[in-house]
């Protein structure tokens, strides 16, 4: 009997008792649906997260102080020293944040003012809409210049071109030199509008140089840990203050999230595994019933020239086809579920061929494992006894 014949026979017999077959495959269906959904949602979520993170720049890290920040914990000179001492650091920018009121020609708004240097643009992948970002000259000469984020610019200037215009930051005038695009991201808490000024400008405004943290990016994905840890060591040495500084990387956070996703996946996968196990036992049970129902058929087939092997394979194929049908339905259900979740969460539903292959592999394996016993029982029937059975 070739495969075509075997599949045809299996389908005839499965179609012969549709309800029974459907109920039998339920366990397999649920198991496979769970696997597909978990993998698809997990992969989709992961890829969404990665895309979001890359919007903020790759290989980013941040260095901050563990407890209370004191003046002088970070100095401009630290930035230079770290950059020359740690080759893995590609860019490093000091940063502080002030909440200020800014007045433009249209109105006065609250802004989160970020005092920094030109390198932040490289670290954070800041994209200019018009004009330029703050540069080294601005910093060295403490120029009163400001770079607005596009929505802040719109509120302050309306449709008018803000470049070359003046705004007033709590009484200090500042020249608008650039407008940057806003990064649309689900990870951004949103809310406050942002503008960038040279760090030296904020020092001038507040009368003291305050750096809250250092933002950096590493030369390479694999160098992030090395870059930030070495930087922390440099700071500790320079300030003779061990354990005062700490660091974090986007990758580290991502790693943690991925670990949590892995654990969730593992839990659901074990539930899916149990479901497959129970489903497999169901398939075995129904195949045993089928063998006993069709004992006479087995006898007839043997009389007509079927070898024991032919009978074994026939019932094995039937069990596998049963499981594959369950697997197929499960894949459809699982994919639909993943698609719905992806639609709601707005990330790509990722069902790779690998996942589908996995589902069908699992179905086949379950059919094979739980089909062997009933099929073997069928094959070992005595043809005379089998023909005598009603």
């Amino acid at each position, binding site marked *: 009997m070739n495969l*075509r*014949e075997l599949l045809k026979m299996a389908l005839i017999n499965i179609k012969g008792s549709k309800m029974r077959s459907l109920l039998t495959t339920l366990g397999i269906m649920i198991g496979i649906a769970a696997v597909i959904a978990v993998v698809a949602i997990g992969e989709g979520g992961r890829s969404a997260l990665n895309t979001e993170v890359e919007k903020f720049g790759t290989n980013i890290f941040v260095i901050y102080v563990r407890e209370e920040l004191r003046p002088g914990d970070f100095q401009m000179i630290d930035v230079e020293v770290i950059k020359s001492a740690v080759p893995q650091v590609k860019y490093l920018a000091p940063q502080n944040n002030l909440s200020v009121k800014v007045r433009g020609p249209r109105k006065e708004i609250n802004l989160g003012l970020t005092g920094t240097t030109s390198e932040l643009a490289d670290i954070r992948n800041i994209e200019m809409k018009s004009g330029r970002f703050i540069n080294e000259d601005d910093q060295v000469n403490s120029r009163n210049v400001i770079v607005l984020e596009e929505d802040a610019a719109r509120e302050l200037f309306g449709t008018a071109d803000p470049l070359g215009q003046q705004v007033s930051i709590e009484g200090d005038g500042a020249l608008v030199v650039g407008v940057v695009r806003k990064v649309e991201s689900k990870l951004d808490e949103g809310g406050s509008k942002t503008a960038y000024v040279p760090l030296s400008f904020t020092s001038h405004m507040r009368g003291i140089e305050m750096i809250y943290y250092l933002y950096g990016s590493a030369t390479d994905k694999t160098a992030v840990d090395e870059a930030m840890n070495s930087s922390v060591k440099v700071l500790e040495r320079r300030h003779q203050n061990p354990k005062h500084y700490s660091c974090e990387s986007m990758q580290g956070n991502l790693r943690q999230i991925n670990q949590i996703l892995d654990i969730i996946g593992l839990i659901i996968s074990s539930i899916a595994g149990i479901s497959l196990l129970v489903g497999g036992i169901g398939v075995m049970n129904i195949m045993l019933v089928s063998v006993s129902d069709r004992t006479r058929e087995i006898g007839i087939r*043997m*009389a*007509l*020239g079927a*070898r024991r*092997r032919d009978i074994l394979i026939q019932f094995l194929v039937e069990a596998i086809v049963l499981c594959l049908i369950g697997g197929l339905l499960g894949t459809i259900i699982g994919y639909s579920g993943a698609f719905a979740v992806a639609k709601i969460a707005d990330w790509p539903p990722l069902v790779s061929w690998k996942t589908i292959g996995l589902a069908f592999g699992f179905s086949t394996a379950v059919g094979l494992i739980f089909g062997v016993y009933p099929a073997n029982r069928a094959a070992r029937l005595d043809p*005379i006894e089998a023909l005598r059975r009603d």
Partner: protein
Amino acid sequence: MIKIEHLQKEYISGSIQVLALQGVSFTVETGQFVSIMGASGSGKSTLMNLLGLLDSPSQGSYCLDGIETSTLDEVGRARVRNQKIGFVFQAFNLLPRLSALENVELPMIYAGVKPAARREKALAALERLGLEDRFRHRPSELSGGQNQRVAIARALVNEPALILADEPTGALDTRNSEEIMEVFQELNRQGATIVLVTHEPDIARCSGRILRLSDGLLIADEAVQPPAAETRSLMPRADIREAVL
């Protein structure tokens, strides 16, 4: 064709040994139509199972179409069943979920015949039995006589050396029995070798030779006198009986 020597079969039923066949020998030539008769417990079913290679003998030899079968293993027996023997059963034993055509194709599937050739041969066999307009029907949609003809078509389709019929009219009414026996006689005239197991003398008389079994032994081997028209019909016999009474 068939050469049987000292065929013995023992069963162990519980702790008791039962000798169902106690050494049976006979020969059937190609083209013969032989009936095996006997009461229940006579060993005729055991002999039938041995002739059909559904079972293997405890002792003795069984040579079918030049093949010594008593030493064959399971795979070898399956092959001989497939190639050399066509079974016709009392209960038709068609597969209920398959059409007449698919049922007839079944032995050829196990013989590895290609689908197109299979279909062609199965159709030819059904046509030979006058079922050319019934090949799509399932067994449940056919009468008993038609089902038995499908079963005969299935038995013929691999061109076996031996047609082995086990009470083939047992589930049929008189008219259908008659028809089926005519089919067997016609097949025999065309050259088929047929061994038929029955307990009905009227049926046995349709064949050319009757072997009688009792208690596992062959007790008689007699030729049937061919009384021309009469053996071909069962109905007149009933009429005669009525007339006598």
